[in-house]
């Protein structure tokens, strides 16, 4: 099957899940998982950066329209897209593999995936929470909330990855 079609279907399904299921989850009053980030994380790294930014912005904007937070998700998603290649380089260390990077189970091991997901999700959540609170008076509270949220979202995202992505070699 064509790669592009797979990606588009993945985006549609994840956005729908986010909008209709995860937006209604509200643990302890402040934990909301944002699983649509998974679609951004699984986007192939080799497509042009401009296209990546546009996709991230569009995705965030759609989520914004459904959750009435105009621009916040768009801004956070854009930051995730900006940070993604740097995080990949950081995690690969010196063993930079030339060619195609696939941040999926099977290709990468669990620790790599955990770090990759957790860091990017934390960037997203921190930006989003900061934009939502919009001041620095309770900075550490903001930090704590976004960290807890990020851990929760990472948990869900890793579960989805390991359940639904077929692992070819284990």
């Amino acid at each position, binding site marked *: 099957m064509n790669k592009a079609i797979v990606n588009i279907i993945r985006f549609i399904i994840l956005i729908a899940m986010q909008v209709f299921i995860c937006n209604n989850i509200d643990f302890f009053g402040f934990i909301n998982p944002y699983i649509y980030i998974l679609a951004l994380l699984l986007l192939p790294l080799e497509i042009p950066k*401009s296209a990546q*930014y546009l996709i991230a912005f569009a995705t965030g904007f759609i989520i914004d329209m459904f959750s009435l937070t105009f621009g*916040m998700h*768009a801004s956070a998603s854009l930051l995730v897209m900006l940070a993604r290649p740097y995080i990949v380089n950081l995690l690969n260390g010196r063993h930079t593999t030339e060619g195609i990077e696939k941040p999926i189970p099977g290709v990468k091991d669990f620790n790599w995936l955990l770090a990759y997901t957790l860091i990017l999700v934390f960037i997203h959540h921190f930006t989003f929470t900061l934009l939502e609170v919009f001041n620095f008076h309770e900075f550490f509270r903001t930090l704590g909330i976004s960290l807890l949220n990020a851990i929760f979202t990472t948990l869900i995202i890793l579960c989805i990855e390991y359940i639904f992505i077929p692992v070819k070699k284990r």
Partner: protein
Amino acid sequence: MNNLVEFIKKYFHYLLFIILQITSIILIYNNINYPRFVIAKISKTITTPFNSGWNNLTRHLNLNKENEYLMQQNIKLMRETKNNFIFQQDSLFTVDSINDRSKKIRLYDYTYANVIYNTTNKKHNYLILDKGSNDGITIDMAVLSAQGVVGVVNDVSTNFCTVMSLLHPDTRISAKVMPINQIGTVIWEENNPEYAYLNDIPQHLKVNVGDSVFTSGFSNVFPENILIGIVKEKNSNPKNSFLSIKIKLATKFNNINRVYLVTNLYKQELDSLKSNLKNE
């Protein structure tokens, strides 16, 4: 030029990133109230000192107009006080007669003027006001300041009028001293613009220092209950049976700028009645 194109090609995605980020910030600002509130607050704290400074500079320019409006408003309020009216009531006192407002007859009406000449240190003191017969000023209108009684109009030209100040030996103002409600006459005798004397109060009445002296309303010039001054000293005069009461005048005659003029709408009728009394 080629380099520039290369540069833009190379860093186009960063440019796009910045543009999209700005777009989302604008979206946040335009659609969500709280960030807008925070930004407005920050910008206010920056701009408020400048705005208030400018306001401090410019607000004095409008003072004249503001004063004019205030005088008009004051007159509007003064016209509504109870001492401007005669209440005619039926001898048969019923609930209807209390509620019936149509039996209220207006006796006094007000206007205002600026003082353009004023003396306080002479034997005979006068004021000149910038309104005359063109503005409906007539002789014997009462002149008040915001603090109390000033004097009586004694001459009118087309555009100006002169006022015989309370600080004039010929001025007699019918007054009453409260709370004993005793009628007397206020006369200015010495060369001090702060004090005057209240005569015709019998010695057996108890007048205390600090009692207020108001107009009586019997002269048909001044409305009732306009403050003239406060009792400062009282001495019993052995030659006659009246108290000699020194009062501190409420009006500060040294700095009067704007005054109110009071006209009695039934002056002629009341005066002709009075002259009939004299003729008999």
